[in-house]
């Protein structure tokens, strides 16, 4: 008998004024014990709603029809109450952002035990024992049950959320974007955990995600949702090699593969770098001051400033794209903020066209800002919702007093929008941000930067908030812009595949330092630093045959408040030796260069 059998599932949401939205259309899914099914789709495709319907947890504005059967018993006729008895004991869910949904005033153990008490499966000492077992199962020491959520890191909270879902021994686990807000290394850890749990507990997994590569690494089967319908379903290998539906094919095509496609690093632009250096950062350091209160001073506690970046050096030439790669907290965004002059630096220099901007006051800096523009991560946040597209793109001109007349400015706005490929501009000028899609918003932000004709564009995770299918377009746009030859681009990303595809050179950052830098081709194909090697080994690949567990680094993203001695990477390094604990390595070319390695390839490892 099928464990979970969903047939003809339909969900509608009431909208204002008697309208309704058909969010899920005739969806059918089935799961057997131990099976791992990926439900893939973009935002608004109905994948989360489908998962919630399986849980019977739709909001009150929803209505549903169809069949959701567990072991042959249809729960739908019973309505909300019909589901309650099966929730958590048969089917449990790790909600999107569950790791941030813990109650801060209760211990993690108490919260994991709560569903057991609610369902009467265990209580008292038995429940405590079970909590310990569950925590061990997800890789957290049982003793941590008495700790509070804020004492856990993001990865640990996500593990605890999974433990909570397993509290009542469910047969089916639904996981909604379980790795989305996590770092690549932690993502790899969580995916490995989910895979292991499924085989150990004979658990059926429904993994809801927007990331095809994550599914390819984790699941046996995949169902692709588009506009509320399942457009294609099948074994992952089959879909990868011969997807029938054009949307599935487009989705695979839009998922960048680390080693697929040409590495952007064409040797020519690396040479051009010497001739027209646009940005030269030398030994840049930035620290954030921690609060040093009067009581701290009286108790003679030392100031503990957070050294966000420490001695970063890099350069960008006109027409070149440099990617800065690293986990969160490694200082990549701080590097961009420091180049932009938005945070006070504590050492080193930032030369833009030969002018050291760290020596300028905020007022002196202001006219120079037009030369360096920044694209922010989240286009939903970076545009003023009260501004029409025209106002947003025109604002920089008004700020810098460019374009004397309205007509002159309108022409500049049009040109910038055409360069950002928002064509025809008339179709967008009078719209507000909420009337645009995510990709269009990001293009508006890009147009508002281009209108100043900057020489340097800093892009901080420019596509990580966008849907997969529009990412490629925005990245290709940035690529074309810099190939125009007048502009250099610094792209900050956590995604090595993206960096490999578009950047000429890659700088890998770890704990405020650049640990490896070189042409994209060299860094991807001949990594020197063990950290780079580990990062490369865990990049999810869309090809299911490339599934490997790689070198998953244990432990958490490092804390810049607590920098280890010697080599900063040694506590997590798989190949660390004794001397790594004491000697701080400097960036240097490899001692035994492989044939064909460009000398500009440097890494900071004693063993390289």
């Amino acid at each position, binding site marked *: 008998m099928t464990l979970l059998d969903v047939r*003809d599932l*339909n969900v*509608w*949401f009431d*909208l204002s004024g008697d309208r*309704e*939205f*058909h*969010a899920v*259309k*005739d969806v059918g899914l089935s799961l057997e014990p131990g099976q791992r099914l990926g439900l893939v789709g973009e*935002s*608004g495709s*109905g994948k*989360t*709603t489908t998962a*919630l319907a399986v*849980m019977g*947890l*739709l*909001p*009150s*504005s*929803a*209505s*549903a*029809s*169809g069949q959701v059967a567990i072991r042959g018993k249809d729960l*739908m*006729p019973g*309505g*909300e109450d019909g589901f309650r008895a099966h929730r958590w004991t048969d089917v449990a869910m790790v*909600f*999107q952002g*569950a790791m941030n*949904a813990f109650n801060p005033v209760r211990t993690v153990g108490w919260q994991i035990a709560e569903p057991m008490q609610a369902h009467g499966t265990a209580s008292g000492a038995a429940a405590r024992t079970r909590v310990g077992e569950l925590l061990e199962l997800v890789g957290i020491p049982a003793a941590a049950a008495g700790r509070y959520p804020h004492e856990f890191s993001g990865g640990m909270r996500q593990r605890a959320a999974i433990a909570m879902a397993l509290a009542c021994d469910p047969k089916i686990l639904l996981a909604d974007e379980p790795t989305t807000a996590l770092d690549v290394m932690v993502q790899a850890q969580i995916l490995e955990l989910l895979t292991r749990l499924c085989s150990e507990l004979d658990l059926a997994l429904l993994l809801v995600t927007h990331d095809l590569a994550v599914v390819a690494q984790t699941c046996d089967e995949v169902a692709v949702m588009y506009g509320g319908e399942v457009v294609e379903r099948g074994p992952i290998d089959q879909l990868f090699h011969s997807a029938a539906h054009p949307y599935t094919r487009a989705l695979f095509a839009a998922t960048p593969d680390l080693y697929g496609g040409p590495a952007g690093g064409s040797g020519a632009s690396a040479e051009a770098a010497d001739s027209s250096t646009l940005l030269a950062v030398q030994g840049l350091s930035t620290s954030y001051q921690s609060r040093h209160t009067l009581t701290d001073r009286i108790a003679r506690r030392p100031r503990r400033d957070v050294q966000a970046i420490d001695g970063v050096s890099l350069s960008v030439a006109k027409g070149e794209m440099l990617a800065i790669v690293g986990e969160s907290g490694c200082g990549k965004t701080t590097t961009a903020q420091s180049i932009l002059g*938005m945070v006070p630096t504590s050492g080193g220099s930032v030369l833009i066209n030969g002018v050291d901007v760290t020596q300028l006051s905020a007022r002196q800096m*202001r*006219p120079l*800002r*037009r030369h360096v*523009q*920044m694209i*922010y*991560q*989240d286009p939903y*946040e*970076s545009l*003023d*919702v*009260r501004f029409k597209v025209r106002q947003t793109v025109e*604002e*920089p001109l008004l*700020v810098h007093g460019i374009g004397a007349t309205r007509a002159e400015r309108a022409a500049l706005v049009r040109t910038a929008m055409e360069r950002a490929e928002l064509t025809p501009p008339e179709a967008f000028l009078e719209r*507000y941000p*909420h*009337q645009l899609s995510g990709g269009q918003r990001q293009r508006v*932000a890009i147009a*508002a930067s281009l209108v*100043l004709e900057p020489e340097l564009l800093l892009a901080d995770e420019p596509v990580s908030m966008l849907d997969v299918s529009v990412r490629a377009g925005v990245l290709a746009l940035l690529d074309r812009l810099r190939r125009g030859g007048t502009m250099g681009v610094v792209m900050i990303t956590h995604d090595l595949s993206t960096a490999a595809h578009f950047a000429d050179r890659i700088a890998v950052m770890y704990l405020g330092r650049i640990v490896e830098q070189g042409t994209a081709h060299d860094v991807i194909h001949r990594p020197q630093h063990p950290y780079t090697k580990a990062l490369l080994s865990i990049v999810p690949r869309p090809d299911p045959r490339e599934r490997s567990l790689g070198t998953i680094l244990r432990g958490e993203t490092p804390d810049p408040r607590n920098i280890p001695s010697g080599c900063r990477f040694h506590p997590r390094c798989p190949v660390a030796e004794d001397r790594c604990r004491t000697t701080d390595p400097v960036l240097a070319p490899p001692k035994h260069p492989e044939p064909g390695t460009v000398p500009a390839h440097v890494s900071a490892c004693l063993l390289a």
Partner: protein
Amino acid sequence: MSTSVAKVDVAEVEVQEGLWAAIRGVLRERTAMVGLTILTLFVLMAIFAPLLSPYDVHQASCTVFEPPSRQHWLGCDDGGVDMLSLVITGGRISMIVGFAATLVAMTIGGGVGLVSGYFGGWVDTVLMRITDYFLVIPDLVLMIVISAVWGPSLSHVVIVIGILLWTGTARVIRAQVKSVRERVYVKRAQAIGAGNWRIIVRHVLPQVGPLLIANTVLTIAVAIFDETALAFLGLSDPTATTWGTVMEHAFDRTAVSAGAWWAIVPAGVAVALVIMGCYLFGQSIEDALNPRLKVAHLSPRSWRLRSLVGRGPDAL
């Protein structure tokens, strides 16, 4: 937790239309409409007071403390002046003083809140300590002291009320500005090279504007109340006819012992109605601004099951 997840899907479908949708949303509330109607009627009454008053308020038209009758709907005061005319004319000055004092309070409060929240640091510390200082002073007592020292005059009343009612607004606006200035689009404006003035006027002020409006409406209520209180205590201009002076005169001239309730109650009811109107309207604006109050996930209502028969034509 669960519904907030599902809401994402719905939110993407529903088209929001910005400010006008917000205004329409406020006006759909029945309480907002009641409040707005009351306020509109009183404002119209104040504007057209000379046309609406049946009698001259400076001339006796009936006997002392004449009870309500067909000619004098609300009776007469101690000087034989028609009470209805007094309430209509008194509303004029009461409301002008109330609005003017609110304007003063909102200018100070909004300004202090903006500057304090936007610049932060020692500016914030200094301004907030001053605000705290004003916040702990008992309003009415200080008003009485200042009015007594400066002497009775309408402009004094406006200033006194104005400089005492700005503290709450300053704190609310400061908190909102502090959150707005951390938004990415404000950072982006800075990165473009925009100056502080431009960012405040173009990006921050429009965001806190609706909150300022809600606070203004609520402050009007307090200002009118305080004006009435000061006038009742004889600290306003004694020659001006306001709701407060009407009640004060009636009180002074033994309307209570004479049993002439109609000399006191109408002005009091007028004050109460205006305050109620302000609160109903202001509160609905605040509710509309605070989406947390709208979250329905604690609703006991469940999602509904649909039979397959009633499916829409697009289902298959």
